[in-house]
């Protein structure tokens, strides 16, 4: 048992190391990790600069979330898509380690670089604003911010399974990207969306986590009906649910692709 856990941890470490090396070796990653957050931050600031600091902060949190989505969630799925394109999915799946641990290693790296993206947004807006954005509870905010990233990573793991399942997962994720921005309240409150879509929004951990972040950071912000603690419980519950289903989804998807035989399709 201990040997198996060690072996899986090693695989996770190897995957993390390869993700970092691939990131450093590939200049195209500068766009989602460094340039996109700057653009998201500046555009949001310029759109709301004449309004109250509260509204600016609201928009900036959404912008930070969008850049983190790109890096954490999209990156996790995309890396598995790359395994398909490179033809490395077959040799990786033929190794003794469950593929889930390879994905987890990548997700850790994408989480770190997602944090970097979020931090860049705040730094850029802070510079444009002339001083640091006024956060009501900075320490709690940072802790929750890290949790938000983890909640994105949990969704990212499930998305990765889609890339193992089919070579068309990229299309689905590209289409879903803007729906996710809107549906989770990155751009504007979900209460502005049609009522029927609200339960769908609540299936995603970032909806809860982002609302909790805003309650914490913006004085006078009320958010969803159940308040900060309700948001937090919802965020933790949905994140745990995503992590739990990720393991099951991965083992089923692995079995499915071995049945269908589409591992080398790209």
């Amino acid at each position, binding site marked *: 048992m201990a040997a198996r856990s060690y*072996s899986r941890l*090693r*695989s996770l*470490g*190897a*995957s993390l*190391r*390869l993700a970092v*090396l*691939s990131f450093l*070796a*590939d200049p195209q990653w500068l766009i989602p990790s460094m340039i996109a957050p700057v653009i998201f931050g500046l555009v949001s600031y310029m759109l709301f600069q004449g309004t109250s600091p509260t509204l600016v902060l609201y928009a900036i949190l959404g912008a930070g979330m969008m850049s983190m989505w790109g890096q954490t969630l999209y990156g996790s799925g995309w890396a598995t898509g790359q395994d398909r394109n*490179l*033809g*490395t999915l*077959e*040799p*990786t*799946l*033929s*190794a*003794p*380690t469950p593929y889930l641990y*390879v994905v987890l290693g990548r997700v850790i790296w994408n989480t770190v670089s997602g944090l970097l993206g979020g931090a860049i947004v705040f730094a850029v807006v802070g510079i444009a604003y002339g001083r640091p954005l006024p956060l009501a509870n900075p320490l709690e905010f940072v802790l929750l911010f890290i949790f938000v990233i983890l909640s994105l990573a949990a969704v990212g793991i499930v998305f990765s399974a889609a890339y193992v399942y089919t070579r068309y997962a990229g299309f689905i994720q590209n289409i879903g990207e803007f729906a996710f921005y809107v549906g989770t309240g990155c751009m504007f409150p979900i209460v502005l969306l049609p009522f029927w879509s609200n339960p769908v929004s609540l299936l995603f951990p970032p909806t809860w986590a982002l609302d909790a972040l805003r309650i914490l950071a913006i004085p006078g912000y009320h958010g969803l009906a159940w308040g900060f603690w309700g948001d937090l419980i919802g965020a933790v519950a949905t994140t745990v649910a995503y992590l739990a289903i990720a393991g099951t989804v991965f083992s089923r998807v692995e*079995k499915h692709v*071995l*049945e*269908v*035989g589409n*591992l080398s399709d790209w």
Partner: protein
Amino acid sequence: MSPSAAIRTHGIRRSYAARKGFLFNEIVRTDALKGVDLEVNSGEIFGLLGPNGAGKTTLTKILSTLLLPTEGHAEVLGLDVVKDAPRLRPRIGLVLGGERGLYNRVSARENLRYFADLYGVPTAERAGRITEVLDRVGLTESADRRVEEFSRGMKQKLHIARGILHRPELLFLDEPTIGLDPKSARETRKLVRSLVADGVTIFLTTHYMFEAEELCQRIAVLTRGRIVANDTVQGLSRLVGGDRTLEVEGYGFDDAEVEVLRRLPGVSRLKYEEFGPRIRYTLRVRTSELTPPTVQASLPGHRELAIRERRTSLEDIYLDLVEEEAA
């Protein structure tokens, strides 16, 4: 399963389903394997030959746990390839080869390090093993170069290095010398022999007949999803009618003369080919008594005959078997 069998399959079938049509509502099934029974002995180099699309890669993937059979049963190293896949994977190696299958942005050494960790190569041995396999495939000098800078042959060598990194007991090699220059191909064959000397069983698929003939103790011919022959090269030559071949070339043979050739003592198979106006009859011969002069003497009307005698090659055997199955 005999105690020395490394691989044993029984009735392996595999079909692929593809969705077609405007709404993808039409399912087209293709049978890649139609009941494969096979036994590979421990410590041998077993060759699997077959034309493109015969099912070689499908069978290799099933045996290496990358694909589930639709029907049938397969055991590798005494383990069921479906139920015991997690226990089997650390004990086998797979080399699929080709341009793809490697992380191009990082070095060969980093590729190997990654897979060493996935295969659980002990950390203390990892660096040494990587150096050793890079040396064995001749990539030491390029070890720290990015794989994207590699030629096809170098990538092929790296695939092999990855396949042997964790010291598997059984290695699946799917066309290992494809894309290699003659020198590298020869070195690869030497490496394969050295692996067998180390006790590794090799399951090799190839299109190069001389390679199979040079390396393999036993050879199976797979065509249209079925094993049509499985024996040593000598055994296979008996199957197609003899280890000697006589080629008789000339112009304007009539039916009676063809019948004379067919009825010559020891002739078991007669093939006909046209080269413009020139016609070649290829005779598989069982006995040593039938020689070019005796063939010439049996066709006194043909003074311009060109008759060549040679050993029946694996390529002859292969083509006979595949053509027979196609017919």
